[in-house]
Every structure is written in C-alpha cells, then in structure tokens.
C-alpha cells in the first residue's frame, strides 16, 4: 500500500512546514517539499495539519471482563477517532493482566481487530493486590512496556520498594497511580470549598502528594525510573520539579480534564465529573498548565475510563470514578489551550505524540524517513461537537457532552493504514 499525503502543514523537528509525505507499506518512505510519486492513494492535506500520531500511555480498554463498557474493537476505534495511533492498556481488567496469557489475549485481539496499536502494561503485583510481585520479566519478554497497579496503589512501602527494584532489574518503567487510601477514604471529589458546599466527602490533596513524595524517595534511593500517572495538584508538581532538579529519574503525565476543568464542575452533581484523581482547584489547574509549558509535566495521557450509562446515572456517591477521554482530548486541548494562546501547538504535539513514546520506550514516532507511518491529520479550522453520535466509544461518560470544540480529526493512519477517516 502506497499513500501520498500532499500539501499538508507537517510537524517536523519541532516546526511546522509545508511538506508532502510518501508512505510505502508500513513506513514513511520520504518527506519533502514537493513529491511526485505514483501512489495508490493520495490524501490532499491542503489546509490540514499532519502530526506524528498521538500516543496515549494511559487508557482502560476494559477487555477482557468488562466489555459492556468498552472492548478492544470499540476502544481502538474511539482512539483512532481521537487521532491516537498508539494506546497503552492498563491491566485492571477481569482477569487482571498479570500473566502472559492475558498479555497475549490483548495483543492478539488488538493486532487482529484494532484500529490502533495497543501496548500492554502489566500488573505490578499479582492480581494488583499489592502483596506479591507479578511475573513482570516473563510478561516483558511477551511484550509489556511497563508495569502498574493503576487504580490499586500499592500502600505498603516495602512492597513498593521491592517492585521498583525488581522492575529496574528488567528495565521496566513503573507507573504509579498515587493515592494513599487512608487519606482518600470514602472521598468523592476534591477536598475544598466545593466538597464543603456539596456535602460530599472530600479527597484530600495529601492523598496524592504523600505517595508521590514516597515514590520519588524510593526512586531516588534506587536510581530506578518512575512515571507518575495523572498528576493533579500544585504541590505534587512542586515535588516532581524538585526531584527532577536533583536528577531523580521521574516523569509524569497530566490528563486533559485536569488541565481544563476544576471541582466547580461538580456543582450540579454530574457523575461525569467524578474521577480519580478528582478535579482540583483553579490554583492546581493553573499549576498543571504551567508545568506542562515548562516541561515539569512530560506528557499528556487521557486516562480513558469508560463506564456504562446505567452505572453513571446513579447517585453521585454510588457512581464509579472515571470518564472517557480518547475522542475529546486533542480538540478540547486545542480549543481551550492552543487557540487562546496559552500553550503552543508544538508543545501539545511534543507532549501528546513524542514524549509519551520516549517515556515508555516505544518506537520513535517522529515524522521521518524509515519510521512507522503513524500519523494524525487534523483540520484546525473545523470543529467537533461532542454528542452521542460523535462518540464511537461504547460508553458516553464525558463531562463535555454537548460541547463544541474547534478542531476536527480528519485521518488517523497506523502503519500506513488509514484507521479513521472523517467522512
């Protein structure tokens, strides 16, 4: 399969340039200002932007076990619709991905039926119970790219230390969902003025910060790599900033919702504003934006967490935590951060395409000769209205239902194959 993408504004080495891109098979064959080749397919990208495909290193595909919420087919379709070409699947499925049979299942389903690449994150402890180290080396030989007990934060510091050291032994990044359960308890939303007013139990910011502090110290003492999932408070960012200055090998990600929403969104009891970590204060949100700009935050990840309608329509404190994110991430960020001039488009591409691949050691996905043809083509002058028809995910749990964002994904291309096209 040969494809020529003509006349697009292409993200190359940190800059946008008018270029043609020639895709041959699964690879980028040539990038140049004027290409005239015989291609089977020609994509006229005049007026469109071409980015290295987005890489989402934090997502829940719910397959196996919770396929009424999402499965690998619907999840990767939704990802492609959001311009994502690679997804890292968290292991908190049923059964938990803590063994090679489960790793194989996810990889094979994704390879056969997926609309984007799926990399598997293995459980850090068996069944993510936080007690015994999983067979992470075996899983690594089968292809996992990191280990995590996402959503089941290991509470015992000694076990966490052992996990970090063992993972270090096999050069596996450890991803931590920082949450001290004794502090978060029955909390529903961020502990602050809004939780006080709504009478909902609060989740103290300290629940996140104390675990980040602990794990930074564990990483520092061992020299191991640590990736912090969905950072959300100003103090957490300060801890990471200081650690990086000291040379600790720590990276972190932020979600679009923590960059764009605050706990004020919870007024009205919309359960699609309920997730972990919770939406924080405006001060925290501003700190996240600044940290994304200055590089303290390394990358953007969606934490796509589908839940069925019948689960989310419940009373606020009975509804599950989590929102979907694949299909809103780029357009929401473009609309609220790039268009008003708060964050540059280049920085978003860096943090949502290139940095995540680097952090987990995935193949380099810059647009250049010889790299895999993983591309996203976007119409920045178009718009996207988030409604039931727009969302391809099985679940519709988004706080942005009914919103219209500037920007529209036109194509997603994975290994030279068009996996999404806006008809």
């Amino acid at each position, binding site marked *: 399969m040969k494809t020529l993408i003509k006349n697009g504004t292409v993200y190359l080495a940190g800059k946008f340039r008018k270029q043609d891109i020639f895709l041959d098979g699964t690879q980028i064959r040539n990038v140049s200002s004027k290409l005239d080749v015989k291609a089977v397919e020609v994509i006229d990208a005049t007026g469109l932007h071409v980015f290295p495909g987005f890489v989402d290193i934090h997502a829940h595909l719910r397959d196996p076990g919770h396929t009424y919420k999402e499965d690998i087919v619907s999840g990767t379709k939704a990802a492609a619709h959001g311009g994502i070409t690679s997804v890292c699947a968290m292991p908190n499925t049923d059964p938990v991905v803590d063994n090679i049979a489960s790793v194989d299942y996810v990889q094979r389903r994704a390879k056969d039926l997926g609309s984007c690449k799926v990399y598997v994150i293995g459980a850090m402890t068996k069944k993510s119970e936080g007690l015994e180290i999983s067979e992470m080396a075996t899983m690594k030989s089968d292809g996992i790219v990191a280990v995590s007990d996402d959503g089941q934060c290991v509470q015992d510091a000694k076990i966490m230390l052992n996990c970090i050291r063992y993972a270090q032994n096999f050069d596996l990044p450890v991803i931590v969902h920082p949450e001290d359960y004794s502090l978060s308890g029955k909390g529903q939303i961020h502990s*602050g*003025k809004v*939780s006080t007013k*709504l*009478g909902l139990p609060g989740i103290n910011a300290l629940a996140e910060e104390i675990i980040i502090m602990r794990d930074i110290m564990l990483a520092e003492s061992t020299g191991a790599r640590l990736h912090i999932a969905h950072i959300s408070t100003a103090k957490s960012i300060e801890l990471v900033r200081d650690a990086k200055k000291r040379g600790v090998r720590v990276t972190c990600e932020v979600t679009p919702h923590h960059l764009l929403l605050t706990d004020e969104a919870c007024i009205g009891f919309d359960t699609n504003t309920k997730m972990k970590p919770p939406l924080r204060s405006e001060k925290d949100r501003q700190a996240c934006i600044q940290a994304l700009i200055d590089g303290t935050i390394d990358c953007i990840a969606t934490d796509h967490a589908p839940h069925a309608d019948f689960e989310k*329509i419940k*009373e*606020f*404190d009975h509804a599950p935590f989590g929102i979907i994110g694949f299909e809103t991430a780029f357009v929401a960020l473009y609309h609220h951060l790039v268009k008003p001039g708060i964050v540059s488009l280049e920085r978003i591409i860096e943090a949502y395409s290139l940095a995540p691949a680097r952090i987990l050691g995935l193949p380099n996905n810059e647009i250049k000769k010889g790299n895999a043809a993983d591309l996203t083509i976007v119409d920045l002058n178009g718009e996207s209205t988030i409604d039931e028809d727009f969302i391809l995910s099985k679940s519709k749990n988004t706080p942005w239902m009914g919103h219209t964002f500037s920007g529209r994904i036109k194509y997603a291309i994975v290994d030279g194959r068009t996996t999404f096209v806006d008809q």
Partner: protein
Amino acid sequence: MSVTPQFLGRNVFDLDDYSRAEILYILEAAKGMKEINLREYKKIPTLRGKTICTLFVEDSTRTRMSFELAANRLSADVVSFQATVSSLQKGESLQDTVYTLGAMGIDLYCIRHSSPGSPQLVHKYSGKPVINGGDGRHAHPTQALLDIFSIWEKLGSLDGLKITIVGDILNSRVVRSNLIGMKKLGAEVTVCGPRTLMPSGMEEVYGCKVEYNLPRALKDADVVMGLRMQMERMTDGLFPSLEEYSKHYVLSKDTIKYAKKDALIMHPGPMNRGVEILPEIADGKQSIIVEQVANGVAIRMALMFLILGGKA
C-alpha cells in the same frame, strides 16, 4: 392567601435558589398554616386530588411523619416509599424506582436520601417538583426553614442577630442549609466545633465565622443551636470520647452564660442529652426545641401549598 406564581412547580433542593423575599414569603405562609394546626379540626381541603410521595431512602421517622402530616392536613393523598422495605434493597436503581412511582401519578416528591444530589436526580427522572428532606450532609432546607421560622416568630427578624451553631459541623446538612438561609435574612452566624469536625473553607463558602472555643463562640449570641453528636464519629477517629467532647462543647448553664441572657436555645433533634446539651438547658425557659418540631409541620405545609398551587 393568594398563591404567588413564582413558587408553582418549583423544587426545594436547597435555599440557594430562594431569595430573601421568597424566604420571608414562605415564613408568612407558614404562619397561616400554623394557625390551622392549632384548630380542633386540623385540615383544609386545599390540595384535594393531589398526590404526594414521601420517598425515604434513609431512615427518619420524625421527618417523614412531619411531611405526611403536612400533606394530610392539606387533604393531599400521601403514599410512602421506604427503602428498608422496598425494591431499592433488591438492587433497583433510583431511576427505575422513580419511573415506577411516576407511573402511579405522583405530583410532588419529598425525598430523604444519604446521597448528596439525589433530589436533583428524582426531579430529573420524574419531571415533578421535589422537596429535599435531607440529602447526605449536603442540604436540609425544610429543617433550615423551620429553624429560621422559629427564630423569626420569636424575635421578629433575623437582621443583625448573632447566631451560634455548635457541634459536628462536618457531617451536618442542617448547618449548611441554615447558613445559606440565615445569611440571606441578615444574621451573623458563627459555627463552632473541634477542628476534626470542621470542613475546610467555611468562611469563604458561607461567609460565617469559625470558632473552635465554645465560650468565645457563644459570646453575645442571640440564638444558640446545638447539633446531634453521633457515636459513629468516634469510631471514625474524629474525637476520642463523648465525655471529652462534652467537656469542651456541651451547652450547659456554665457555658450558655456567655451568650445573651435571654438567648434562644435550639436543637434539630434527636438530642443526646448529656452529650451536646444538658437537660437544664434543653428543658429550660429559653429552649424552643419542642416548638421547632411543631413549626416543621407548618413549614412543610406552606411549601406544599405554594408549590402545588393550592387554593386558599
């Protein structure tokens, strides 16, 4: 009494949605209802043919009785749904419960639920007006209105009054709704309790004062309200013992002397005598605790009357 159209079909989720003038209007209406309750034949035909449902997903015999009496005295038909004996325990969702009840032709729901925001859900699924009878620790507007009514009836106005509320502020929906209403009517409110039972940002959210020391909190108060201290808070690790709590926060002759000499003493009930309030105060001359209960029926009658557009 003529029905002002702005009440027709409205929800009572909390007092945020009601202006000072509207709250005063409700108090006036409740005054009329109170007169009915003092008659020998305590019933008027105004809501004949209307059906009111008390939907209680959390136990509360007193509040449910108060709502049901209010509805009965206005001649509405009342049906009662209690989760303890109902399908909600078999796993039916609140949505399905409300759809089922709606099919039976309910005109107004009075709901008590442990989840904040559940009255909003009942309204969303039923399309009918909802009176919040207490949702978790979020709001309890009818309790606040009856508390405010009790003060207003005795003192004529809340403007400039110093009101002190003492106890488990963290877990109290009564405090939250009272703060909104009392501030709208011009009172200065101080909340008092140990730090572990005080939610963050109270001053900013409600414009109240926060005190951790009882004598200081009570200084020059015109009205003092005690709150029920629940045993569960002790097992939650928020304070060590009822005895120690009582030593520092009980309303007694010794502590109440810091308030104004004739300060009103209130409590939303049920009381833990000897824990947050001593009998000498609860049953004393200044106490209006029993009257609060009577006023509750009048306030709930007034709201039902105004929302369902009863004919005078």
